């Protein structure tokens, strides 16, 4: 009887989850498999050569342009992740520990609102803010802090990092906030009772317990950032382009889908590899809780 109920429970569950699952298989798993397959094909002008070969990978690995773009993308994503997470932590900490419980939802809502407004418009506004005659430069000159407009803040890596750190802020704050909320406050009292100072209690109790959130935040910022296309195009200038821009060029301009597919696969492999290493490096923090 129990077996029968269990079977029917599994069957009902599977039947229910089938529509989203079929959708994800048809429009995510299959297309990704096709991309992997494409990466082993080659494009000869208008003809697709379907002999399996590693030529694209060889080219992607040896051509300095691809290597440079790939390395730069990983670098930018890494820097953006570090800055975003470090800047976000105190905010999450403040909301979790110093905001009255009934007001926390409002604060979190306030933090997430900018994220829901048009990404394109927000990034474009950064161009307006950081530009030669932009808001920042005219303001700084206006208050007499600088004499000539700063040029190091637009059409380069810095601009990409600032705009991305802004765009991904809520992604970093939310997981850290959730991890901090789960910390049993009596642990901190116990630490203080046992003679820890506020600072050492933070370092030895709060921080380790918040690490799952920090790891999650890092991954959720790092992975999508590497595929960002708009920000490098709008504020990056020629020196700030990333691998996604090259993938787009291969697909839509050069009509070389196999090379674009190869770069996409490589980007995903590299990102997954780094993400995996990062999780492994932090696994002692992650296994404390189920």
């Amino acid at each position, binding site marked *: 009887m129990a077996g029968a109920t*269990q079977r029917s429970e599994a069957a009902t569950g599977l039947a229910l989850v089938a529509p989203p699952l079929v959708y*994800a298989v048809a429009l995510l798993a299959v297309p990704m498999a*096709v991309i992997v397959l494409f990466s082993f094909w080659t494009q000869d002008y208008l003809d697709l050569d379907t002999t399996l070969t590693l030529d694209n990978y060889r080219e992607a690995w040896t051509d300095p342009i691809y290597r440079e773009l790939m390395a730069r993308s990983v670098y930018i994503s890494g820097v953006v992740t570090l800055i975003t997470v470090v800047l976000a932590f105190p905010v999450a900490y403040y909301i979790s520990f*110093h905001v009255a419980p009934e007001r926390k939802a409002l604060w979190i809502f306030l933090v997430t609102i900018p994220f829901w407004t048009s990404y*394109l*418009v927000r990034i*474009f*506004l950064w161009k307006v803010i950081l530009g030669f005659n932009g808001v920042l430069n005219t303001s700084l000159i206006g208050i007499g802090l600088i004499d000539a407009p700063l040029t190091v803040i637009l059409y380069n890596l810095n601009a990409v990092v600032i705009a991305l750190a802004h765009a991904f802020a809520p992604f970093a704050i939310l997981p850290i906030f959730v991890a901090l909320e789960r910390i049993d406050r009596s642990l901190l009292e116990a630490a203080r009772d046992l003679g820890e100072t506020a600072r050492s209690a933070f370092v030895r109790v709060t921080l380790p317990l918040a690490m799952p959130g920090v790891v999650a935040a890092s991954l959720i910022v790092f992975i*999508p950032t590497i595929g960002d296309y708009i920000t490098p195009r709008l504020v990056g200038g020629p020196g700030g382009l990333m691998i996604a821009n090259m993938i787009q060029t291969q697909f839509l301009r050069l009509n070389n889908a196999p090379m674009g597919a190869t770069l996409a696969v490589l980007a*995903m492999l590299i990102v997954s590899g780094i993400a995996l290493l990062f999780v492994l490096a932090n696994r002692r923090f992650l296994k404390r809780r189920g």
Partner: protein
Amino acid sequence: MRGLRIYTLLYLAFLYLPIVLLPIFAFNDSTVIAFPLAGFTTQWFTELADIPALHAAVLTSLKIALVTAAVSTLLGICAARAAARYRFPAKGGIMGLVMLPLVLPEIIVAVSLLVVFLQLGLQLSALTVILGHVLICTPFCIAILNGAFQSLDNALEEAAVDLGETGWGAFRLVILPLVMPGIVASMLIAFTISMDEFIIAFFLSGTEATLPVYLWGQLRFPQRLPAVMALGTILVAASVILLTIAELARRRGVRKRGDTDTGGFL
């Protein structure tokens, strides 16, 4: 602790800086987007009324966003309900696959769909954008609906079945009203994401430009920028209003499930 509070407020200022500047320039009587401001005008807003290409893009985006909101919320209900109520084989793997687009770079989703659609000989159109948008919106819907479904008390449904309701009847009369605010929030969020999404629409829209794709085209023309600012202001205002409604719906849902005996929806 004062320092922490000041830091947090500064951080919020940083977060809001772009969307606060937007309306300032949208109402500024100058074609140059810079300080000092020149004077107040609503010219850029009235100009928007005379651009047929913009109106077509708005209609396309609305059509895509409405269908996306409905379909991804339906898929989200299936997945969230299955995850919250039933145990089934390979649950972790299945849910992982369905939630994957949440962390996948959008460019990967966009190019893989593009390749498949082109191979299938499918004409790029609003339909192909909808297919892509449903894929990336469903995980958000599931995340929102999970909260609604997981906090449900199974006993309520069992009671309804014991009192003679069929499984579907219990779902429709007991569960659905309780998760309704979550469904509203899910549809609003999916609608907002779809209205704003650029990369997938850029790859898959073909000749049927969505609003962000249209905006992207305008960014190249300096003389169009004030109108872009005006359009951006309208978009941001609309997003904020929809999100506030979604948030109120979500809170209402939380209150209702914490206080289930006081009655039904409406």
